[in-house]
């Protein structure tokens, strides 16, 4: 239960981090908040030769709202939870934060670390899908922007190349008429969810649903958009039957696995029930 030996490199700027990553390549691991990586090291499930610590890189910790909401990858989850720009332009993040582990974890955990780690049951990847976020990656080859929907490949796998660092998350500000909801079921408050949903939608002047984005987590090999449900909802007039059908349809978009905590069948059931409840939440929300 102690990490295996490794060489430690504290990066004090993004350039230093990119240099170290270019030098050590596959032998190196990036250390963000460490709330997932350190347990992995303690269990000796990984033994990287080099650990490149991003915590001293101040330029990666910021929240800016200037037309688009920009969040530095090393911004602490606790900062997101309390930040007025987040509450104003991406209240879905604010709503989801209390479910992201515990305050003691959020003190250290970062948004970029959670996204790059890509745990299938993590909340933030699903939130980024629901918000149509764009992720920015840097390497010595240049900068690349990746839509959230093309970023999460599968269990602990993302679109990031070995020489790339996730630097920033860009989120189109939620318009005042955007409705949103977040729901999850976990065995204990703050634990990884058995299943969860983050969604956004708008209603047009005739009361029809516009641009629904329903993201599920804990029920697939990574966070996933429930495209079948979204197709049913898009342009439709809300009714009990529509919500039931849409919730039922999420089964087509997910492939949950069974483990000691829950069977695949139960996870599918949870995903459907949570989707229905979240849709109700969003439709009942009062908007400006």
């Amino acid at each position, binding site marked *: 239960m102690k990490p*295996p*030996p490794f*060489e*430690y490199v504290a990066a004090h700027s993004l350039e230093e981090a990119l240099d170290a990553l270019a030098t050590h390549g596959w032998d190196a691991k990036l250390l963000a908040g460490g709330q997932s990586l*350190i347990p992995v090291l*303690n*269990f000796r499930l990984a033994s990287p030769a080099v650990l490149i610590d991003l915590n001293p890189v101040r330029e990666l910790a910021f929240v800016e709202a200037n037309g688009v909401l920009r969040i530095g990858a090393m911004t602490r989850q606790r900062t997101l939870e309390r930040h007025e720009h987040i509450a104003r332009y991406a209240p879905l993040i604010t709503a989801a934060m209390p479910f992201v582990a515990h305050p003691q974890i959020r*003190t*250290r955990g970062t948004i970029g670390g959670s996204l790059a780690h890509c745990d299938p049951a993590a909340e933030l990847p699903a939130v980024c899908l629901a918000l149509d976020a764009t992720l920015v990656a840097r390497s010595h080859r240049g900068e690349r922007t990746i839509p959230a929907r093309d970023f999460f490949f599968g269990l602990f796998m993302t679109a990031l190349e070995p020489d790339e660092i996730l630097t920033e998350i860009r989120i189109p500000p939620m318009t005042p008429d955007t409705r949103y909801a977040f729901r999850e079921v976990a065995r204990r*408050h703050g634990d990884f969810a058995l299943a969860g949903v983050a969604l956004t939608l708008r209603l047009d002047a005739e009361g029809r649903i516009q641009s629904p984005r329903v993201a599920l987590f804990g029920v697939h090999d990574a966070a996933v958009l429930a495209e079948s449900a979204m197709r049913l909802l898009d342009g439709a007039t809300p009714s009990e039957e529509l919500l039931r059908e849409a919730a039922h349809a999420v089964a087509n978009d997910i492939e949950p696995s069974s483990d000691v905590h829950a069977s695949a069948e139960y996870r599918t059931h949870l995903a459907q029930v949570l989707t229905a409840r979240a849709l109700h939440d969003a439709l009942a929300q009062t908007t400006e």
Partner: protein
Amino acid sequence: MQKLTIEVTVNGTTYRREVEPRRLLSDFLRHDLGLTGTHVGCEHGVCGACTILFDGEPARSCLMLAVQADGHTITTVEALAPDEKHLHPLQQAFREAHALQCGYCTPGFLMSLLPFVETHANPTDEEIREALAGNLCRCTGYQHIVEAVKLACRLMHAPQEA
């Protein structure tokens, strides 16, 4: 083997030590500084026994490397009581409400709850249970801990008598 020199302020005292990069902050506090009040339970961030204040905010010391604490400020359970004869109100409340039995998890609970009781005068049961969800206790069943938090909030936010 790589060794790094770090300077860490713990409970108001600044320590300068040479450490291996893989040294966990929890082990640094216990083995290198002899501050054994910080307990180590699961060592993978689930039980909360090793919770400390890192720059004033509760954090798991088993999920940090000692080298990452270089230049930072840490508060451990040893700093809670003002002196040997008196307990901190939070400790006093734990004692009076029987919020501990074996006591192994207690330092983690105290450090997790310290910022909470400082900022909440009259919390609901739900708020309290959420605040302590990141700490495991196998003895008490938590009810007495909830009672202790209520008592601590009363003690700490009582109107000062003239």
